[in-house]
């Protein structure tokens, strides 16, 4: 199961449409969820519409929340998407095998069994979540909450029985032609990203569409493989301690 979670606070303004990019992601088997973070004021009508559209195109869900509720929301969206993916797959099987539309049409005794299977699958299937963080200027005061949400998500994923990993990107990248930049390669234990976030140079552009497409490619390239080479996730995790060996994977 592959998911992208986009965390943003407004509309895109550069490059291809994020809605089309999200549709492409979904076509490649990656569900796109969007958390719109706002504290004072709102994302604006246009931003809100775009956020909802990206999620709809990406087969996922969107929520507009305050920083205080971000961790909870991210955790909830990820979990519900996992369940949704499994339910869809199981319901499809049921259609083919039994000719019923969904588990809700089965008599309660059968339903109990099918739901048990769904729960096992939700718990045990491998899961990959790529977080794509909007690092435009207006997001700066919200990054602490984003960091906390990532730590919190890591905690929930670690508790699963199935193999789980997260990767973290921010956009725009540092160079003018990078849509986004990898901060953390697939890891099953994301820790504080403070060191990374502290160094971010916030820029004005918001190339949400190109960034989404780049993350889709990343899924393809890595096949979600957790890097276990010596200098990879472990050093990345401990980065705060030694003050910044950065994996210079620039995308």
């Amino acid at each position, binding site marked *: 199961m592959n998911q992208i979670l986009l965390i943003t606070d407004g509309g895109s303004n550069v490059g291809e449409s994020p809605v089309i990019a999200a549709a492409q992601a979904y076509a490649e088997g990656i569900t796109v969820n969007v958390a719109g973070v706002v504290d004072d004021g709102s994302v604006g009508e246009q931003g809100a519409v775009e956020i909802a559209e990206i999620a709809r195109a990406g087969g996922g869900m969107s929520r507009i929340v305050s920083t205080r509720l971000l961790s909870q929301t991210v955790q909830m969206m990820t979990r519900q998407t996992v369940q949704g993916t499994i339910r869809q797959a199981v319901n499809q099987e049921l259609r083919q095998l039994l000719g019923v539309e969904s588990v809700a049409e089965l008599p*309660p005794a059968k*339903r109990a069994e099918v*739901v048990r299977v*769904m*729960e096992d699958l939700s718990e045990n299937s491998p899961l990959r979540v790529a977080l794509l963080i909007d690092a435009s200027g207006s997001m700066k005061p919200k990054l602490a909450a984003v960091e906390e949400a990532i*730590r*919190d998500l890591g*905690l*929930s994923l670690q508790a*699963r029985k199935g193999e789980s990993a997260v990767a973290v990107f921010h956009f725009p990248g540092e160079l003018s032609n990078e849509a986004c930049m990898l901060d953390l390669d697939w890891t099953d234990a994301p820790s504080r990203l403070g060191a990374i976030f502290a160094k971010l140079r916030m820029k004005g552009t918001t190339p949400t569409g190109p960034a989404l497409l780049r993350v889709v490619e990343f899924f393809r390239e890595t096949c979600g493989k957790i890097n276990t080479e010596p200098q990879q996730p472990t050093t990345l995790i401990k980065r705060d301690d030694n003050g910044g060996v950065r994996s210079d994977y620039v995308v």
Partner: protein
Amino acid sequence: MITSSEKQLPPGTVLRGKWNGKRYRLERLLGLGANGQVYLASNGSRTCAVKIGKETEDLQAEANVLASLDQRERRRPPFLLDVDDAELQGRRFPFYAMQYVPGSPVKTYLRQHGAQWFGVIGYRLLERLAELHEAGWVFGDVKSDNVLVSDYGRVALVDYGGATGIGRGVRQFTEIYDRGYWAAGSRTADPAYDVFAVAVLWIHALDGKRLLQLTRTLLPQNRHPRELVELVRTNPTLQPMESWLDRALYGRFQHAREAGEYWRALVHAAAHPKTAREGQVPGWMAGLLAASVLLCGTAAVIWFLH
């Protein structure tokens, strides 16, 4: 299907089970939650509670937990009574019927009957959780609303939406009761997860204002069990149980039974003035002492009658 903001069903509404054919007359709303609505209902002359769900799968998952507990604990009457669908105004609602649990949430109970009851309630709650753990489940979503207390401190759990097989990721939890939120451990379901939440429950019930204040002001990176212990240390009602709360918050109870035993020992130790620290009996402990004297008295009378 339905959301909590959606309107409630009026009293007198009759649900007719599509598969099992039972009829339930809804009497009044008992509670609303993230997963559905719970009504007091009657099935013939029998009173029960009916939970109407939003998602078939979520509701069925809860019913599965209840069914497995009923399987395990055959000595008591089953809690889960029926699982079915009902049709109302052309829409299908999944629901299940269960025993009606009288009582009020812990916080309300303590407000009405006095904080001195928390010794008894705490013991009963840990015993109940231990049973659940021994059946292979962790409750997960321990919080005031889900712990109903009836006469003389009897305890029952409701809302098994968070119940999780031991070793899996906790399915549903409430942030401030969550061990992971306080950087006190993982979110993997183990008995200590529930025991931690019980400790927070007591802080929430007896020092709620300061707890909520703390969650609002503390930076995420500073969340730590020591912050909770600090609250306990400076609250006269909680202080007698400090050593228990400390162990629970630091995950130093492997089992709820063990936690229950220790709780019991503290309750008794504090009830005996000689062994109590500085010979001083805190108010709530004195109340408990009176209750236990009364109980002993009753026991003696019964003994005589035999």
